[in-house]
C-alpha cells in the first residue's frame, strides 16, 4: 500500500479540496460502468458531493431489465489480451464476466444493482440523459426507481456548476 503524501513545497499554495464531482457514464460494458460507480462512491466516502449522469449505453447500468446482466466486452478490448476471434466465441463474454465478478466479490466490490443502491443511500444523485432516453424509446418506469430525474444537457451543466466533470 502506497501512501500518497504531497511533499511540502515552500511558498506553494495548497489547492482547494474538490467539493463536487459530476460523473458521466456513457458506456454499457462492465469495465465501462464500474470505474464511474467506484469514483462516485469514493467521492461520497470523502464527503464530496457526487452526481452521476447516465447517457447512451451507460443507461444500461440503471435500466431495470439490464442492470443485472452487464458484461465485459471481450471483442474490441485489447486490454483483455484475448485474440479477437476467441473473444467473439459464444459464451466468452459471460465466462470472462463471471471470472471478473468472482474476483470483485472477494474485494468487497458490490454487484451493479447493489452498487447503484449504495450510491443512492450514500447521497449521490443519479440522473438520466433526456436525449438518450428519447432515442432508445425508454420511459421513466424502465429505470431504477430511485433515479432523481431525466434531465437535459443544459440541466446537467447547471447541476455540475462549481465542481469537476468526469467523463467515462
Amino acid at each position, binding site marked *: 500500500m502506497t501512501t500518497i*503524501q504531497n511533499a511540502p513545497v515552500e511558498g506553494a499554495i495548497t489547492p482547494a479540496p474538490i467539493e463536487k464531482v459530476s460523473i458521466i457514464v456513457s458506456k454499457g460494458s462492465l469495465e465501462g460502468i464500474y470505474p464511474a460507480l*467506484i469514483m462516485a462512491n469514493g467521492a461520497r*466516502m470523502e*464527503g464530496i458531493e457526487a452526481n452521476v449522469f447516465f447517457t447512451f449505453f451507460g443507461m444500461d447500468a440503471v435500466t431495470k431489465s439490464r442492470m443485472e446482466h452487464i458484461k465485459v466486452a471481450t471483442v474490441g478490448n485489447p486490454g483483455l489480451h484475448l485474440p479477437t476471434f476467441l473473444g467473439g466465441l459464444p459464451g466468452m463474454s459471460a465466462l470472462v464476466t463471471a471470472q471478473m465478478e468472482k474476483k470483485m466479490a472477494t474485494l*468487497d466490490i*458490490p454487484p451493479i444493482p447493489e452498487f447503484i443502491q*449504495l450510491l443512492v*443511500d*450514500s447521497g449521490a444523485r443519479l440522473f438520466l440523459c433526456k436525449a438518450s432516453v428519447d432515442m432508445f424509446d425508454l420511459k421513466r418506469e424502465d429505470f431504477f426507481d430511485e433515479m432523481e430525474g431525466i434531465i437535459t444537457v443544459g440541466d446537467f451543466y447547471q447541476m455540475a456548476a462549481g465542481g469537476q466533470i468526469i467523463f467515462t
Partner: protein
Amino acid sequence: MSTNSYAGVDLALDGEGFLQDPAQWTPQIGEAIAAANGIPVLTDRHWIVLHFMRNTFLSTGDAPSIRGLGKESGVPVKELYQLFPKGPAKLAAKICGIPKPHGCI
C-alpha cells in the same frame, strides 16, 4: 505526524488526525475527537458503528468498507451518512481511534 491532546491525554496523530496507536484510545478520547470534528454528542447509534468498526479492526487488522458497515454494523448506509456527515468510514475510524481506512470501496 503531530501530537494533540484529547480528553487530557497527549496522543500521537498522523497528518490527518488519525491516532497512531489504537491502544491509546478510550471512549472519552472518542468523544473529544468527535466534538472536534463537528459531532458534539455521540448517540447510541454512533456507538454501534464505532464499536463495530473498532472491533473489526482489532480482530482483522482492517477497517470495514462502507458496504461492510452498512451490511453488518446494524446501521444502514443512509443513516451512516446522517450520523457521520463528511464521510462515515473515515470519520468513524478517526473517532474510534483506528488508522485511516485504505480501501477504495
